[in-house]
């Protein structure tokens, strides 16, 4: 209820009208911004996908042409594959690292604040700016190939290797993101009643048993939450790809997000790029619905 005056006794019509006017006035600036810069572009994006559009030449309706082209475009299927591989490689590792680190810095000990602060530092770092050093780290003379070389494993640049390049991008994304997810997990861990674990300990449960039967079930909702946002995020991966590989070598890191950028702002094919965006959107919707379903079942 908006106000006590209105709730306590039947508000007069004038008072309600006044309240509505005030409410509308306060929300109006944001509403206008949303109409212009969120809803209109959203509808526009749906529309553009069904035609050909150039900034000078205007819009020509083409029906399903763009989607037909998409279906026969090997590059689209390739970028879809790259994006899915990237997601499958990066998201589980990311969530696992985040949960692992959260468990390690969960308790209070000397220096715990340092570790928490250090793990969060990459989160506030632009991956574009950090990309400069990561190009070096994964280059033939860089830290990772040299380190692996010194123990007799693979040598040579990761960024020019068509298998390792995507792994490098995933590694950078995990580096830049796990601190954020770790905080989410930590927040959830703090909410688990301490008595639960204390009782289990009295009953003689070891660390692993406590984790398996108390902590893990309590974390389930967080797993799904992180899964959803990280999968959606990974479908749109762009910054690290742009700066580190430019989609190469030989399109090995050519993701959907990168293809969309390429089509729109290199070839200025706004209609076709919008069709790619729509495919991306559909993919995100399906994945979040599936995850939603699993989440609902899991919480029963």
């Amino acid at each position, binding site marked *: 209820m908006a106000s006590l005056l209105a709730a306590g006794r039947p508000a007069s019509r004038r008072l309600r009208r006044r309240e509505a006017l005030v409410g509308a006035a306060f929300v109006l600036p944001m509403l206008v911004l949303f109409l212009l810069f969120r809803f209109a572009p*959203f509808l526009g994006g749906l529309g553009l996908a069904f035609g050909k559009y150039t900034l000078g030449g205007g819009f020509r309706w083409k029906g399903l042409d763009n989607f037909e082209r998409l279906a026969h475009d090997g590059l689209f299927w390739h970028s879809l594959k790259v994006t899915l591989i990237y997601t499958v490689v990066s998201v589980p590792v990311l969530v696992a690292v985040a949960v692992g680190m959260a468990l390690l810095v969960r308790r209070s000990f000397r220096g715990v604040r340092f570790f928490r602060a250090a793990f969060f530092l990459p989160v506030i770092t*632009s991956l574009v700016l950090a990309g400069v050093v990561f190009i070096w780290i994964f280059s033939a003379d860089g830290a990772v190939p040299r380190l692996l070389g010194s123990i007799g494993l693979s040598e040579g640049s990761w960024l020019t290797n068509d298998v390792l390049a995507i792994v490098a991008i995933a590694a950078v994304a995990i580096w830049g993101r796990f601190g954020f997810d770790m905080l989410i997990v930590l927040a959830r861990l703090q909410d688990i009643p301490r008595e639960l674990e204390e009782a289990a300990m009295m009953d003689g449960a070891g660390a692993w048993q406590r984790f398996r039967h108390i902590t893990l079930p309590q974390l389930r909702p967080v797993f799904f939450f992180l899964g959803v946002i990280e999968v959606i995020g990974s479908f749109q991966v762009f910054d690290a790809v742009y700066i580190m590989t430019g989609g190469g070598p030989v399109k090995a890191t050519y993701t959907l997000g990168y293809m969309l950028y390429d089509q729109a702002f290199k070839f200025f094919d706004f209609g076709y790029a919008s069709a790619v965006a729509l495919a991306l959107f559909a993919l995100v919707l399906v994945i979040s619905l599936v995850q939603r379903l699993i989440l609902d079942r899991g919480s029963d």
Partner: protein
Amino acid sequence: MSTLTQTDLGPTTPADQPAAAPPGRTGRSPFAPQGVGRVLTGILLTVGALATLFPFYAMVVLSLKPNGGLFFPGSLVPNDLTLDNYARVLQGNQVIRWALNTLLYSGISVVFVLLLSSMAGYAFAKKRFPGKNVIFWSFLGMLMVPYHITLIPLFVIVAKADGVNTYWGLIVPTLANAQATFLMRQFIRGIPDELLDAARVDGASEFRIFAQIVLPLCKPILATLGLFVFLWHWNDFLWPLVVAQSPEMQMLTTGIAGLMQDKVPMSVAMAGSVVALAPIFVAYLFAQRHFTEGATMSGLKG
């Protein structure tokens, strides 16, 4: 009003749930790992911290190395250091111009996002008006729409309005922030109606109630949210890349990305990155709690 403290606002406000270091749990835990577990924990944490911090160390050391080439055969031991790379990247004031652009982009956006989202949040939390729920849920629904699908039409709209390479074209479209509106609404819902009604009985205007009661009570969330909006804009890449292309309109991120494509020596680009990252790191050093709170909030409530 001045006696109303943060805790009076009820348990639903996000700022009441500090994420990283809750009070009362600082004592030695009965299940703190012991023996082998403790050693293992120490090793894992050290490896984690090394992996996390090494890139920063490498970036700083390499930016201080005398080097003209694209790659570094040299070592990471900090000897024969020089400031040449910094002199080179700062020369011509290009980076300073980019820093000013980034500061404008971030600063102006913060002010307006905070103002407009708290206004809208107030209306959603405390007022009844026709269409309120539809509008609110459509705002939230936009969070589900990938940024990429609106990017192209957004660019077309801005381009049609001659907004490419202008500050307003860059800033105005980023102000429609659903997440900020949602967070402000959640927080303002925790402000007791009695307080606002009392002011109303005293004859305060709606604007005064908002400016002198609601906003001051929102200080903690405004600080945290503001910091996060600032950070988001400071690191933003794709939108500036598309809208602010001319050299004098670029941000630090797009400018330095451009430097690398110009094939300047990597050590020079790294010096640029260090310059661009430094302000954020200094802010983090002083306001760490707000950064982590902002992350938890946006994660849990968004």
